[in-house]
């Protein structure tokens, strides 16, 4: 199911998602987009994903290789480097810690009236 999400929120975790997806399976740009859509992130557009992949490559977190395709020219497949695996582990721990804190706050019951300031 796809629902409207804050694009800035998604953008913040996009790199982490890309690292995880590429750790699971070597993929080319459009394939990554399709996989994001399959997991329910249909509102992430190609125009956001391709530059993010490019940035990960520049940062040395993913490497790319050209694989010839039956459908036309060679496709650029991305896979994680050692630095990418490190970044994924660090990012996942950081996200889990942040999500715990945010969830614990957001799951508190909301009183009928906000407590008055003294």
């Amino acid at each position: 199911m796809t629902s409207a999400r804050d694009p800035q929120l998604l953008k913040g975790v996009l790199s982490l998602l890309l690292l995880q997806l590429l750790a699971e399976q070597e993929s080319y740009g459009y394939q990554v987009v399709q996989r994001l859509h399959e997991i329910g992130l249909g509102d992430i557009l190609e125009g956001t994903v391709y530059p993010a992949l490019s940035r990960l490559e520049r940062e040395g977190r993913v490497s790319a290789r050209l694989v010839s395709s039956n459908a036309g020219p060679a496709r650029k497949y991305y896979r994680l480097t050692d630095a990418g695996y490190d970044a994924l582990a660090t990012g996942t721990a950081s996200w889990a810690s942040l999500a715990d804190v945010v969830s614990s706050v957001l799951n508190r019951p909301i009183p009928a009236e906000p407590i008055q300031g003294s």
Partner: protein
Amino acid sequence: MPHTMTLLDRMRIERLVWALDQRLYDLPRQSRIAKRREVRENLRAATIDVGTTTALRNLGNSRQLAAEYRVAEFGDEARPSWITAALFFLTGSLFFTAFLGEAASAFGDGIKAVNPNATGTFTWTGIRYLQDTVTYTFADGKGSSVGGAWTPLAWLLWVVATVLVGRLWRVASVWRRRRTRHSA
């Protein structure tokens, strides 16, 4: 159901790739070519999957995409635009030179209009501050001219305008950041 790619689809894809490429001139050549190829190939894959119209819509406009690629390549730091500076300097100087040439030849035409058989030396001080003195030498209505070039002040103003248009003052901060990064 997979879509079949027509010639029109290919042309629409090429148009987007071309527009993107025009906006990526600040990137290193190899990087620009790699991005062009990758976007083209991904668009073709998307076209077969969802059709060209949806594929192009999902990619977004070339201006935004190029901006994202530039940030991906160089980071969020403000950067100078060498290509804009070079284009401004060359095309602008071409137009300005033509303008000064026209001004000088208008002076010569004026002399001939007053006296079609003019003979002698005629001097015009040129456009104030921007152009050197123009001297026409006429013999029986046939003349030749010397001078009319840019003054040092005109060159200085042009260089300053180029720096402003290309935001070249950012070069200093880019170098500073690079030096800090290398020494870290």
